[in-house]
């Protein structure tokens, strides 16, 4: 059971990365971004292409990193993928969401557009890579035997550490930079922020960059932990939204806590249920939450 708890925290840190981006988008752009899971998938497959095709072709070596199943090339690929995914999100915003915002379309229309975008991204991944499961590496590394009968793979520790580093960086950014403060102000009250002279276009663009980069990182970390499949992001959509609502929409700290809780609940449920039921477990958590505390743990009742 302790082992499941630890694995749950690892899964939860992946969910948290996706959920923090989703909650920023939800809070600042004010619509439910249903393509967020598929941005995760996109980021993961970009790393697959870089790590096993492009970078080896360019002659970039895989510098081993201790006990991990991958090396420096993977880290380089991760950084590039975060940038590429952020660029894709900006492009989609320019082509699709910005015209809808200018037209003052309702948030539901933007949500439908994002649902369409989710299916478009997934179809592209199916077309390029096919439906089969893929792996970054075939290497098997021995797990560490920790106290309390916990077996932890070095890769899992890496996932947890990297996720925490990214969250910490985001926290510093939001708390201590002018742009971060502008983002929080826009999430609080967009009209007031606009009247105060905050450049909402710039805030919007940075929200996409941060949200998409974190989503890409989440997808890659899931790919390291498990495997890549075109519908992996879709199966994350329910836990992501459950974590966002649990933490209160627009609250990054809430999304972090919500993500960890969802990860632990999903993982511990595998002691009683088939692992394939994980999305359904997230759904049950969500329904209970909506009945008991629809504004989330940290949300305000407005």
């Amino acid at each position, binding site marked *: 059971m302790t082992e499941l708890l630890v694995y749950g925290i690892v899964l939860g840190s992946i969910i948290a990365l996706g959920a923090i981006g989703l909650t920023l988008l939800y809070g600042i752009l004010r*619509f*439910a971004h*249903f393509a967020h899971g598929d941005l995760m998938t996109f980021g993961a497959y970009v790393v697959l292409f870089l790590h096993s095709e492009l970078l080896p072709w360019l002659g970039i070596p895989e510098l081993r990193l201790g006990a991990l199943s991958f090396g420096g090339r993977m880290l380089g690929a991760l950084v590039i993928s975060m940038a590429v995914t952020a660029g894709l999100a900006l492009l989609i915003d320019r082509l*699709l969401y910005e*015209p*809808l915002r200018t037209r003052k*379309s309702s*948030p*539901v*229309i933007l*949500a*439908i*557009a994002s*649902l*369409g*975008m989710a*299916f*478009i991204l*997934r*179809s*592209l991944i*199916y*077309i390029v890579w*096919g439906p089969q499961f893929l792996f970054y590496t075939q290497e098997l590394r021995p797990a560490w035997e920790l106290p309390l009968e916990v077996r932890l793979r070095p890769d899992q520790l890496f996932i947890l550490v990297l996720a925490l580093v990214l969250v910490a960086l985001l926290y510093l950014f939001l708390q201590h930079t002018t742009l971060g403060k502008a983002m929080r102000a826009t999430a609080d009250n967009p009209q007031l922020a606009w009247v105060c002279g905050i450049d909402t276009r710039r805030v919007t663009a940075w929200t996409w960059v941060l949200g998409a980069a974190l989503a890409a990182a989440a997808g890659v970390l899931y790919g390291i932990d498990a495997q890549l499949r075109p519908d992996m992001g*879709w*199966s994350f*959509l*329910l836990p992501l*939204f459950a974590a966002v*609502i649990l933490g209160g929409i627009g609250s990054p700290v809430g999304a972090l806590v919500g993500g960890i809780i969802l990860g632990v609940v999903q993982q511990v449920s595998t002691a009683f249920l*088939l692992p*394939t*039921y994980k*999305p*359904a477990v*997230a*759904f*049950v958590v*969500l*329904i209970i939450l*909506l*009945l008991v505390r*629809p504004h989330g743990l940290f949300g305000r009742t407005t």
Partner: protein
Amino acid sequence: MDVSGLLSYLVSLAIMGGIYAIFALGLNVQWGYTGLFNIGIAGFFAVGAYTSALITTPMPEGVYATYVEQLIGLNLPFAFGLFGAMVVSAVLALIVGIPTLRLREDYLAIATIGIAESIRLIFNNERWLANGPRGLTGLPQPLRAWVEPQHYNYLYLAIVLIAVVAVYWAIERGIRSPWGRVLRAIREDETAAAMNGKNVFAFKLQALVLGAAIMGLGGALYAHYVRAISPDAFTPLFATFLVWVMLMLGGSGNNRGAIVGAFLVWGIWTGSTFATDQILPPFWASRAPYLRFLLVGLILEAIILLRPQGILGEERLVSKLLE
């Protein structure tokens, strides 16, 4: 292809177009008239199909029972299957609607995705319920004794079209009544509707349940047409997304638009199957379904950006004297 081959192709196209028209009409009640964001159509589709299958098939016996497990097998006539599908689908809508319809509008969307995914997982994993991933086969078809087997699809087409007309007529009646006006008032301005003394939650729940019952009917008609159902058929791409594109293309808030959109998108869908199977080399042909989904996705974005009202647009239901 000879004439009779072409004709039977057109008949099968029309049957599926009609079944999708029923889903699009159900979604039109929820989204088009009431503004309810249901993206879990696959869930109601699956529940309708499986319910009717469990009601109309006999319980497996003898050797067969070791291969096929199902919760119940009532062996009742087709009409009971349709009715049961509508009832169970409506109950499912109550379960989703009660916790979510008092909250922000997008919570319903998230909950409907959740119920659709959960239902697919349940049918996939719980073999005792409806035979797990292999699903149920040999679903009975009504009035088979009336016509030659090779002409049966004409009869089934008639059944589907009667259902489409009946659903269309019922929704038109409802939507032109005071009840329908309240739904549209809620869609336009929920607060104003509430201030006029309307119980917004109750009306939304009624629209969700009615739409879901119609989708359950569509699911049952689908099941008895293909005669073999498995959880694979009820994926969000195939069962939810296509229906949304149909309604958005035809025109939300217009029942004729829903029907036109259904036949049009299904025509594009099967027509492009034809094209990709014939033209593309084998590698691409195996990925053709995804090329088609990409095409359908792009069509949806194009409608939202270029013609948000769809082909027909919303029908004006107020007096022409009020301009």
